């Protein structure tokens, strides 16, 4: 929140007139989009025959009963954007936090109205980073209009009025009016200029702890996740894809299950088989009984041991310089004290607690989708392509996500569901749920990688050079996007430009991208996930080789205010340096990821068996 807010012109923030129930609808333009759109007053599905001329625009609605609703374009998978954005709105609006509600913004409307809600992509830790300034501006704009409406009603100067706790007060007389009493008038106010938004020093709500808006529904089983969708006459499907990525289905013997109870049909796809039934358990049990023949192709003869060797071997091949400060190679060659290490990480599944699923209802001119998605807009377009419909014929109903971690951006489960209803000519609602087994084996994994790190220490233990060779799976390449100059920046996160240290004079990072037939994708924190582990493990090895305290050694590598602040805070709260007793110790790590520096201290015990137990993490 340290960034300066962009300026908004009056034209960008529009009060769009009274809504049907007399609420104030405040429209916000997202920078870079052509126009704004209207609020839905209730959480109803946006249908093409229901366009209301009074609804011109909106993200924010204030109802006569003082309820404030923010339409949230972001998914909610536990990261808290669904509470953080309304908090910023309330901060500016000076409304009671208890009066704030949040709804998922309509995806269909976003398609129809020129992506007024943006790309709706909830990934890369962007939920708040990309939306905070216009949400704040919307709140400030609404507050100013409410104040002016009250001043006009009382026939007093607006400067004598102030807003607090969902009311406008006239300070000299002590009179007050609720926001709900003012919204109709406020909707008609034209502001001469948009008010400035608060700076973090002025925050009253933000920056302090507030209850999440979804704690109650998630503690009582009421929160609806994609898997909880229950439509009339809904069917259920379980699917099994070829055990080898890129492989094909050859044949299916379904004679054992066709007469089983509740089984509707077996749907054969090019690379998968699905069983459709009236109950998910019946579908999944039947699927397990099918005799399926697959053709895995050449990839069926590969294995993990071979891949691991290939990643290690790639470190000795041709690399592209992705960062090259000073002369790291020369410094390493000249140094008498070089530390070297090779680390490896395997493919890693996302394993979201809620296995991937999508519920679809295909009709001649319309496809309804119910799922929790990190990328609802793109997923809706994907579903349209698979169904042979136009994007505006897709009605995407966003639900809570039982974990995302990057897995729920691609819509693979939705693609499966649409393929099954199309191929099977199914016109009832169908929920396709990946069994846990399917969820693990049909994932797009965190990239496999190997890395060699070299560090040159001076005789007095100063780090003068870091030399990194990285062989890593490219997410861009795996998802069909270009990798200009052979560099994939997600694979560099944490070992390239974004590191918390700025005082290492010579730094080289070379990268070679290496993909197999196994798809790879964004995994929680993306490149930082494996690269932080790599770099910080190595920094520790260097500290030990230099005979320095690992925390002090890190402090010597940076004069960045944020990095030092995190290190000093960690030292303070963890009691760094205080003895812990036999068999116990502390470890520290620092990371610069997605525009923030973070760190941890772990207190561990090495047990007699040699196993390490993590006792505490600060």
């Amino acid at each position: 929140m340290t960034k300066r807010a962009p300026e908004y012109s009056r034209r960008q923030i529009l009060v769009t007139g009274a809504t049907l129930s007399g609420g104030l609808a405040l429209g916000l333009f997202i920078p870079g989009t052509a126009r704004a759109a209207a609020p839905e007053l209730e959480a109803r599905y946006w249908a093409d025959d229901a366009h209301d001329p009074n609804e011109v625009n909106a993200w924010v609605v204030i109802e006569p009963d003082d309820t404030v609703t923010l339409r949230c374009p972001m998914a909610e998978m536990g990261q808290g954007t669904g509470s953080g954005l309304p908090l910023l709105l309330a901060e500016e609006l000076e409304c009671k936090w208890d009066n704030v509600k949040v709804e998922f913004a309509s995806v269909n409307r976003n398609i129809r109205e020129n992506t007024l809600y943006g790309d709706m992509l909830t990934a890369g830790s962007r939920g708040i980073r990309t939306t905070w300034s216009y949400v704040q501006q919307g709140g400030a704009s609404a507050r100013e209009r409410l104040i002016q409406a009250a001043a006009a009603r009382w026939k007093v100067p607006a400067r004598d009025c102030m807003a607090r706790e969902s009311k406008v007060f006239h300070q000299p007389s002590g009179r007050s009016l609720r926001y709900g009493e003012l919204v109709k008038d406020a909707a008609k106010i034209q502001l001469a200029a948009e008010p400035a938004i608060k700076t973090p020093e002025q925050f009253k709500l933000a920056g302090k702890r507030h209850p999440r808006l979804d704690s109650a529904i998630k503690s009582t089983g009421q929160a609806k996740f994609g898997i909880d969708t229950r439509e009339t006459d809904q069917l259920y499907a379980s699917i099994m894809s070829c055990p080898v990525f890129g492989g094909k289905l050859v044949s299916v013997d379904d004679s054992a299950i066709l007469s089983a109870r509740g089984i509707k049909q077996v749907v054969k796809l090019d690379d998968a088989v699905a069983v459709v039934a009236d109950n998910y358990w019946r579908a999944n049990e039947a699927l397990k009984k099918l005799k399926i023949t697959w053709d895995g192709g050449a990839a069926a003869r590969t294995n993990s041991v071979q891949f691991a060797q290939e990643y290690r071997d790639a470190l000795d091949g041709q690399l592209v310089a992705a960062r090259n400060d000073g002369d790291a190679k020369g410094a390493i060659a000249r140094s008498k004290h070089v530390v070297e290490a090779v680390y490896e990480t395997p493919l890693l599944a996302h394993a979201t607690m809620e296995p991937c699923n999508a519920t679809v209802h295909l009709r001649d001119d319309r496809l309804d989708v119910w799922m929790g998605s990190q990328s609802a807009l793109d997923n809706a377009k994907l579903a349209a392509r698979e169904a042979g419909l136009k994007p505006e014929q897709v009605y995407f109903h966003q639900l809570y996500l039982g974990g995302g971690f990057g897995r729920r951006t691609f819509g693979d489960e939705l693609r499966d569901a649409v393929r099954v209803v199309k191929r099977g000519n199914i016109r009832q609602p169908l929920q396709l749920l990946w069994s846990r087994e399917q969820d693990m084996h049909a994932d797009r994994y965190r990239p496999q990688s190997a890395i060699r790190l070299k560090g040159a220490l001076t005789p007095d233990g100063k780090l003068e050079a870091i030399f990194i060779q990285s062989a890593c799976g490219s997410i861009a390449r795996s998802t069909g996007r270009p990798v200009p100059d052979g560099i994939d920046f997600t694979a560099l996160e944490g070992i390239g430009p974004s590191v918390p240290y700025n005082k290492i004079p010579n730094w080289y990072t070379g990268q070679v991208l290496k993909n197999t037939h196994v798809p790879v994708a964004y995994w929680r924190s993306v490149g930082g996930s494996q690269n932080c582990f790599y770099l910080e493990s190595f920094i520790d090895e260097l500290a030990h080789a230099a005979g320095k305290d690992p925390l002090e050694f890190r402090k010597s590598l940076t004069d960045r205010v944020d990095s030092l602040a995190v290190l000093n805070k960690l030292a303070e709260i963890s009691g760094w340096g205080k003895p812990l007793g036999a068999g116990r110790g502390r470890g520290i790590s620092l990371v610069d990821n997605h525009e923030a520096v973070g760190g941890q201290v772990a207190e561990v015990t090495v047990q007699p068996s040699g196993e390490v137990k993590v006792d505490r993490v600060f």
Partner: protein
Amino acid sequence: MVTLKINGEQHDLDVEAEMPLLWALRNEIGLTGTKYGCGIAQCGACTVLMDGHPVRSCSLPVSGAQGHEITTIEGLSHNGTLNKVQQAWIAEDVPQCGYCQSGQVMSATALLNRTPDPDDSDIDAAMAGNICRCGTYVRIRRAIRRAAGKV
């Protein structure tokens, strides 16, 4: 025909005896608060109470649930009043994605029913079978202490 008593209500279900309770709850009765996570009793998302004891509904056939009192997350609150575990969960803002939390609340409720004043090792033992991918374990422990009247 299988007769189940769920949250004090009797349900006569025409389902196979071996159908796991989870799928009877979610697909036949429409109680979706109990979640599917792994199907092999390893993650705890499907935890319900049987006569007050936590069981994994994904691996318990309906025939085994017959004749017992089954309580799901939907049955913990009465006339809009949440049980003390749920109240503590909200007070401590435990849930993040929330998907595992029905199971967590059920396991915690069972723990406090038999051990009203649990220490940390009691909590660890009782909650070890409930995985949370968001890592809300610290708050879970605090919420259990709060529900036990320790906060």
